[in-house]
Structures are given as structure tokens and as C-alpha cells.
């Protein structure tokens, strides 16, 4: 009804690198609360999609896994995650993005990655989660080492889609 065309503000992006185990649903609850506190814009949050990745109990070679060690590039990793999330949000017109990623030693069953997107329709929310997940797997500096039987082995590539 206004005669001025509203400028769509840049989507709020939250990036978290976490050194300790985290509960994805608690992070999501805190994220939802923080977005709701910014203003009751129910339109831009009609659709919300999440992905949680957890550490498998076995190595790529099928041995029991003691832990996954995640190395990163402090500074660049956060900047890359933010930049990938911003680009994905802009590409799909998403309203808000959360990326949380563990670093350090992560044990089987623990969450390693959480991606969440709010958008005004289901398509952008679903697609942005999916694309951002692939983007960060290939373009955010993280390196996994599998620990099994007291020996560490660097993982050569990503798990298949």
C-alpha cells in the first residue's frame, strides 16, 4: 500500500564455530527467539528448513571410530561460512540463515554441522539448506581426521551425497 518500494534488507546470517558438543534443537530454539525478537515478520518465516549432520560410528574403512578431529583455518573459515551463507541467501531470497559447525574432537553420534534457513516459501528454504550444505563441504576450510585404534587418518574426500 506504500508508494515507496521497500528495500529488502540483507538476510541476518549467524555463523558459529563450536569447540564443545552442542544440542542442535537448543541452537535452533535460540536462533528462532533471536529472529522473533528482531520483529514479528511472520511472512519471511512461513517456511523453515534444517539439516543436522552427526558423526558416524565407523571410519570410511569400516573400523570403529573413536573420534573425528576437525581442523579449520581460524579467521578464514568463519569468513568463508559467512560469505557462502550470504551468497546462498541472496540467490534464493532467503530471510535468515544459521550455520553451526564443530571444530576439534567430535565423538560418534555428536552433531558436527547444523544449517537452518527461514524463507517466505518452502522452495527457497529447502534449496538454500541443500546448497549451503554442499557449498560448505567444498569451500569452507575444514579438514577431518578419523581416529581409530589410536591412529589418526586424514579423510581424503567428502562422503557421497
Amino acid at each position, binding site marked *: 500500500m506504500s508508494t515507496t518500494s521497500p528495500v529488502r534488507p540483507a538476510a541476518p546470517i549467524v555463523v558459529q564455530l563450536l569447540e564443545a558438543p552442542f544440542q542442535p534443537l537448543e541452537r535452533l530454539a535460540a536462533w528462532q527467539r533471536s529472529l522473533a525478537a528482531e520483529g514479528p515478520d511472520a511472512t519471511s518465516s512461513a517456511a523453515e528448513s534444517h539439516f543436522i549432520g552427526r558423526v558416524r560410528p565407523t571410519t570410511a574403512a569400516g573400523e570403529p571410530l573413536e573420534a573425528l578431529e576437525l581442523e579449520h*583455518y581460524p579467521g578464514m573459515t568463519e569468513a568463508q561460512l559467512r560469505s557462502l551463507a550470504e551468497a546462498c541467501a541472496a540467490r534464493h531470497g532467503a530471510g535468515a540463515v544459521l550455520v553451526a559447525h564443530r571444530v576439534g574432537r567430535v565423538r560418534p553420534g555428536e552433531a*558436527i554441522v547444523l544449517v537452518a534457513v527461514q524463507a517466505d516459501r518452502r522452495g527457497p528454504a529447502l534449496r538454500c539448506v541443500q546448497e549451503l550444505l554442499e557449498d560448505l563441504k567444498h569451500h569452507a576450510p575444514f*579438514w577431518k581426521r578419523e581416529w581409530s585404534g589410536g591412529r589418526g587418518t586424514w579423510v581424503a574426500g567428502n562422503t557421497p551425497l
Partner: protein
Amino acid sequence: MTHPSVPPVHVRLFAGLREQAGWGERLIQLDARPGAQRTTAADLWRQLALDGGPGEEGAELPATVRVAINQAFAAPDSPLSPGDEVAFLPPITGG
């Protein structure tokens, strides 16, 4: 021939590359003589023999290793400037 007034580049290695080389960070003085060709990330890789045995000129930068200059991805043939942080990144396996 070193030029102490010129800041060195800060070389960083990660994950398997770091362990293979036996070091994760080094300060390297670029050749800053007038008329010298500017050193690229790929040049540094060879000069530091990151793929070869110690002491001898190493192999070419493999296509699987990515270069970051000042914490942003960069082409391997980007010329380096004094004070740059240059990192060699093995294949990424996050998420």
C-alpha cells in the same frame, strides 16, 4: 640477500600438508631486489619443496591444493606482496 626492511610473507599449511612438511607456519622473505620477478604462490610451493624431499627444488603445485592469500581463495599464479599471508589448503572435507 635479505632485505630486513621489507615484511616477510607468512606461509601456512594445514592438515595433511602440515604434517607432511613438518611445520605449519613460516615467515619467508620474498626476493625484493629491484627488477626481480614477483614471487607467486606456486613459486613458493616449489621453492619450499612442499611436495619434494628437503633441500631440493620441489614439484609443481598439485591441482588438488588450493591457495588462499590473506584468507581468501586466490589463483596459484597470483603475485605475492610483502606482508601477505599465503596458505596452502589440501582438499576440504568439512560438513
